[in-house]
């Protein structure tokens, strides 16, 4: 035992003085008497108690004061030296989802082991739990001991466990404990404790899926890259199920360590839904990388509305027809109260709020009162090669006879012309958000050769897709395949190393002495 403030023990020297001051005065007269019983009876008749045993009461009071002084001096029980912090490096990469010999995934076995060990730790040990693999997570204290919101096996083991353990172990009374399955690593940590839970076995996985989405057409082209790691070729079956008109099932033979690509088309259902592409192979120990899952949006039934003056010629009608053929829709006349999926407007003025209506407008004024500005005879100088609407299209042959750039709303330009002063003027913009958009050109179809260009149908189709925004996008829900997490045949061999004994902290005895003082005072109350 040691003291936090040993100088305060000097107050104990005051106790003899207190004792001397508390001593009662001695009786002034001493009488030998045979009548002690009569004295006691006389006191009893007056309901007077015999004088208290002052000495014992004083001793108890002094002991309580001494206990208080000792508590004031801060008695401390010296602890045992040793680590007081524990950092657990938990390998939660995708490979830990493999089944062990017991049938349980290595991740669950490791989680159970960590929970049990952490629950048995002394309460003063600070615990930090680091998830290595997939998203980096850090848990501390009680949330670490319960592995709260620790997720499922996923991702690659991005951390260098060897370097991480070496940098942590032994620093600031910290001991490190690595829990891993031994997969995807060059060597295992030499520092600290180690628990290795291997789950070796053959594995077949979907490495990647390339999708050609012909939305709003129902055809979906899939190219599935498969890989297998086994002692020999692995026979498997690839199934595409879910929101498809007819499930697809293909048998494949997967050679060891080589990527096999399987291409097939599926017809998606008009109402949309999830599509599940899954490979099933005998003896596969890791089911987590066997599936590719995506959500398909519902297919539209586009009605292409046309709004144009007679003088604008047949170009807009031809464009609408081309778009209807491209998206398997129909062309209708735009009238009040008519519901259409896409509006094609050529020239004139139409009260269309840019970005709020799915439309493609060619030389259309949206505000009839707005000034027209000068009609240019622009020279197309450039288009955005990376824009979703113009990527891969050749617009070099585009000629525009007349345009009204001032009539364009504010938006995202992707086509420009050179002004009279040499400045770049937008000839086409996209206005809207992720869900609804409209495409605006500064010229009428009749004033350009755009309808004659080969890129025109594709541009219309892209404008249609862009007008629907994310509603037309396919959403992949399955995680990307983790590189290096598929080959489970030969985990690194390692012998487990146990955690070292933890130290015990210093414990203050001040509270115990205060309690002892209170007990002595309580006892004193019963001493007469």
């Amino acid at each position, binding site marked *: 035992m040691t003291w936090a403030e040993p100088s305060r023990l000097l107050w104990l020297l005051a106790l003899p003085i207190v004792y001397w001051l508390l001593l009662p005065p001695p009786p002034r007269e001493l009488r030998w008497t*045979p009548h002690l019983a009569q004295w006691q009876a*006389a006191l009893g008749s007056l309901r007077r108690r015999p004088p208290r045993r002052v000495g014992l009461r004083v001793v108890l009071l002094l002991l309580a004061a001494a206990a208080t002084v000792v508590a004031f001096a801060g008695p401390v029980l010296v602890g045992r030296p040793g680590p007081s912090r524990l950092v657990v490096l938990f390998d939660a990469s995708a490979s830990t989802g493999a089944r062990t010999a017991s049938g349980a995934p290595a991740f669950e076995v490791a989680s159970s082991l960590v929970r049990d060990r952490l629950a048995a730790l002394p309460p003063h040990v600070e615990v930090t739990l680091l998830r290595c693999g997939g998203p980096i997570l850090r848990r501390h204290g009680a949330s670490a001991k319960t592995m709260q919101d620790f997720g499922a096996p996923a991702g690659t083991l991005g951390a260098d466990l060897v370097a991480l353990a070496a940098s942590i172990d032994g620093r600031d009374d910290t001991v490190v404990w690595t829990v891993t399955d031994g997969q995807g690593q060059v060597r295992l940590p030499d520092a600290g404790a180690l628990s290795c839970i291997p789950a070796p076995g053959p594995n077949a996985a979907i490495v990647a899926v390339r999708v050609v989405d012909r939305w709003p057409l129902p055809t979906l082209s899939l190219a599935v890259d498969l890989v297998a790691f086994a002692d020999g070729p692995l026979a498997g079956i690839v199934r595409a199920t879910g929101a498809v008109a007819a499930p697809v099932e293909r048998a494949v033979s997967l050679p060891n360590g080589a990527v096999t690509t399987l291409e097939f088309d599926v017809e998606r259902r008009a109402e949309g839904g999830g599509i599940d592409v899954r490979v099933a192979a005998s003896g596969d120990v890791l089911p987590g990388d066997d599936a590719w899952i995506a959500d398909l949006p519902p297919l539209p039934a586009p009605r292409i509305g046309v709004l144009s003056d007679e003088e604008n010629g047949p170009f807009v009608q031809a464009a609408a027809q081309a778009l209807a053929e491209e998206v398997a829709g129909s062309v209708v006349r735009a009238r009040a109260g008519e519901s259409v999926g896409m509006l094609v407007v050529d020239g004139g003025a139409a009260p269309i709020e840019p970005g709020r209506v799915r439309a493609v407008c060619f030389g259309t004024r949206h505000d009839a009162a707005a000034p027209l500005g000068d009609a240019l005879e622009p020279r197309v100088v450039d288009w955005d090669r990376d824009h979703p609407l113009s990527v891969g299209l050749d617009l070099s042959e585009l000629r525009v006879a007349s345009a009204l750039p001032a009539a364009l709303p504010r938006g995202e330009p992707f086509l420009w012309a050179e002004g009279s002063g040499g400045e770049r003027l937008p000839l086409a913009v996209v206005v809207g958000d992720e869900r609804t958009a409209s495409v605006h050109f500064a010229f009428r179809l009749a004033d350009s050769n755009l309808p004659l260009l080969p890129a025109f149908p594709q541009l219309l189709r892209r404008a249609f897709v862009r007008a629907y925004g994310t509603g037309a996008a396919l959403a992949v829900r399955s995680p990307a395949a983790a590189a290096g997490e598929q080959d489970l045949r030969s985990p690194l061999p390692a012998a487990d190393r146990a955690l070292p004994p933890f130290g015990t902290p210093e414990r203050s005895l001040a509270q115990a002495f205060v309690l002892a003082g209170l007990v002595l005072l309580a006892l004193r109350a019963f001493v007469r």
Partner: protein
Amino acid sequence: MKRVRALPVVPERFPAGFRTMLRDLLARGPKLRTGRTEQRRAQSRALAQSGTFVGHRPYVCGDDLRRIDWAACARTGELFVKLLEEEDRRTLTILLDLSASLLAGTPPRRLAALRLAAVLGGLALRRLDGLTIVAPGAGRAEAATFAGAGDLDELLRHLDALPVADVAPDAAIATFARRGVAGRIHWISDFAEPRAFEVPLAALRRRGADVVGWLPTMPEDHGAPRRGYVEVIDPENGASLAVPVDDELAAAMQRELELLARRQARLFAQTGCPLVRWASPEATDFRAAVWQDAIGWGLR
């Protein structure tokens, strides 16, 4: 922790002044303050010689001349005194309480008790045939017999040597059971706990003993100090009590002492025995008049 205190010291029991007063008192003879008829009756009872002859013993100075066997003197030329068998009226027994409670008082009650025993015993040696001192708890000196005026000094030595012994009053019954009851019994004690004396006193009465209780009284028996912070200690067990005394407590103590006196009186009244409350004289008070009551009771 209990503090051990030395018991009070009893002053010299029989100093020269007391011995002189005692011899004068015995030589001068009792001055009874009773009427003529009672005086004559007491004298005749004291001077009468009766009993069974059991032998002779040599005459010593102080023996009653009337008890000399002149016939034996004529035959042998030496003085002999006739020894008669002890009978009730010819002998006397003094039962002494040696308990430490008699050490209380100033002077200690034990001093008055021993001197009272000496006066009664001396009177018995002078006037009667024999004397027995019974002191329960005194070991081999528990019972001692004396005869003749010449044993006065031996009696005083015996009394002076008696120790302090804490024995229950019941112990006297065993002594009398072994030795039998001889003559009147003068029981000298403080009778501090009357209940403890009920059984032995009743037992003695059943044996036909004529018991006289002697209680040498002290000022402490009549009242408590009026004020003060007093520690009172029981000499028998050393138990003490620190008592702040005020008028109210002094009055209550007065009532308790009166109650004790009544209980002591009732103790003897129930057995038909007298209890003599006799005021203890000062340690240096050797006036003969102080002992008149004792002499009177001794001659009855």
